[in-house]
């Protein structure tokens, strides 16, 4: 079985910097969850997803979300075959191991729901038939925080379906020089078939067996519970789904680092990515110009580690 670190190394031959994004993509792949990437255009969000799909030898589909997109454009549709005289089903782009939902907040709610239902149920119903989605199935959705005009904000209940939300930031100056050197000429080839889909499924099995000491489980519960305490800037905290996400991601992180037991560092490291999109910040964050990230950080920091 190839080690997850090999996959990370291969991805880094294409993507410069953005280690947090790559770590999150790998952890979500292993933990069996979906990733929401938020960042300005041009930060290799799409390239990272494409490189990951290529490196695991899985199928990759990209869906550009637009205001006129229809649910059938995502899940598929039934068409009438005149020669056969019957309806046949054409499967949509959601049927892939890695699906990139670009600018997911540009499509209306019913289209978002079509995607999010598949994410949750791992199956899609088209007409009278239900089709299972491939395994592994990871959706990576992107949102651009700069242009809010003409967008449909994802409701909190739908945001909760994403295992993590990663903030993609600009590269450092050194990284940008390396980007120039790497992408200034011909487009570099994507890493191909570095690991197999079977490897990924085996990683998932091993990661689920990573030991989470009872005190760490309690710590995860306290972290999520802290988000539900009365807070000047938070109206509603995270649900138990966040606790499950914390545990799954902490296990995945420990597994990637070659351990069969999780540490407080694992739980704490993934906590901001698990919590940030699950909190309902109130209007005071806007009027007081408080960065939601500092609120999440203060909630996490207030909980003693075991």
């Amino acid at each position, binding site marked *: 079985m190839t080690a997850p670190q090999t996959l990370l190394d291969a991805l880094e031959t294409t993507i410069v910097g953005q280690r947090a994004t790559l770590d999150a993509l790998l952890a979500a792949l292993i933990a069996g969850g979906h990733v929401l990437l938020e960042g300005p255009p041009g930060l290799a969000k799409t390239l990272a997803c494409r490189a990951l799909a290529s490196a695991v030898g899985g199928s990759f589909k990209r869906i550009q979300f637009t205001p006129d997109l229809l649910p059938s454009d995502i899940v598929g549709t039934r068409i009438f075959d005149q020669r056969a005289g019957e309806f046949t089903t054409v499967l949509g782009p959601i049927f892939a191991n890695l699906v990139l939902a670009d600018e997911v907040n540009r499509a209306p709610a019913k289209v978002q729901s079509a995607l999010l239902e598949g994410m949750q149920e791992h199956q899609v119903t088209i007409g009278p038939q239900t089709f299972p989605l491939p395994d592994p199935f990871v959706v990576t959705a992107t949102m651009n925080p700069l242009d809010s005009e003409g967008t449909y904000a994802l409701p909190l209940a739908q945001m909760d379906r994403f295992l993590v939300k990663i903030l993609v930031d600009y590269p450092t100056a050194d990284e940008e020089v390396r980007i120039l050197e790497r992408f200034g000429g011909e487009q570099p080839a994507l890493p191909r078939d570095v690991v197999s889909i079977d490897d990924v499924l085996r990683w998932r099995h091993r990661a689920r067996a990573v*030991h989470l*000491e009872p*005190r*760490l489980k309690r710590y995860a519960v306290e972290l999520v519970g802290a988000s539900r*305490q*009365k*807070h*000047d*800037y938070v109206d509603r905290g995270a649900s138990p789904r966040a606790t499950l996400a914390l545990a799954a991601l902490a296990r995945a992180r420990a597994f990637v680092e070659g351990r*069969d*037991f*999780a*540490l*407080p*560092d694992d739980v*704490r*490291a993934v906590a901001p990515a698990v919590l940030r999109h699950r909190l309902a910040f109130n209007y005071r964050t806007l009027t007081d110009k*408080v960065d939601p990230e500092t*609120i999440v950080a*203060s*909630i*996490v*920091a*207030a*909980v*003693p*580690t075991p």
Partner: protein
Amino acid sequence: MDLLAPIVAPASAEALARLHVRAFTLTADPKSLRVGDTLRLRIVARLDERVSQLDNVTLPDLSGFDSLGDERVCTSSASGSECSEVMTLTPTVAGDRTIAPATLDAIDARNGKPSHFATNPITIHVDPAASQPPDVPNAPNALVDDLLRPLAILVIVGAAAYALLWGFGRRKTAPPPVPPPAPSAPPASVDPLPQLIAALAEQRTRARVVALRDELRRRIGAREHETLGDLLRRRAAGADATFVDVLRALERAAFVDDAQLARAIDEALRALSKWRPTP
């Protein structure tokens, strides 16, 4: 001033802090253990105010437990403060022991009146000490036990005889006036680390690993929310590589699966044997 200092005299209303107490709790981990094992007793006060320390807290009676150390901290955030005191204790007698509530005297910010906040009580179940497992190689200890046991019996019998004789003798004479109790001197500061290392070597349990890990964290000034990664990043452990190995080994022993615990503790003890603690 102590963060959670006991009240000697009733505090006047003027001396009390005005606080909005959201939670004041007493917890123990574990709640069931054996004589000689360690438990962590944690008193936590969550306040709406930002405070750097909390006064006028009365700790419960902890007779029946030996204290191996404590850690006090107040952390503040946008939503207020959380003050906690974590005491590492080891029970000395078996049986169910109910620890009475800790109390906090403050002006309740909700109504402006002097108030007496109390935590929940907590019951600890203490089983008698486990006998030494036969497969643990502990020959030197066995030898010391063999030599000391007859000596201890002699001392106990002698002390009992002396007490009997002294008691009879006292009854024949009029009792002198009872002198006023001398003010108790503050307890001498004893480094608990050697005891905790010896305790772990003697009984290789998770609870003893955790107690030792807590003590080392306290020594290097670890804050309550800091992980080992944080401590290593801010070089709280200094440049001593052997100490970093100790911290890593104890972290592993504190969180590995039960099936790997014995090996992890062996590794931690090996790392500890290579480390020379500085006071």
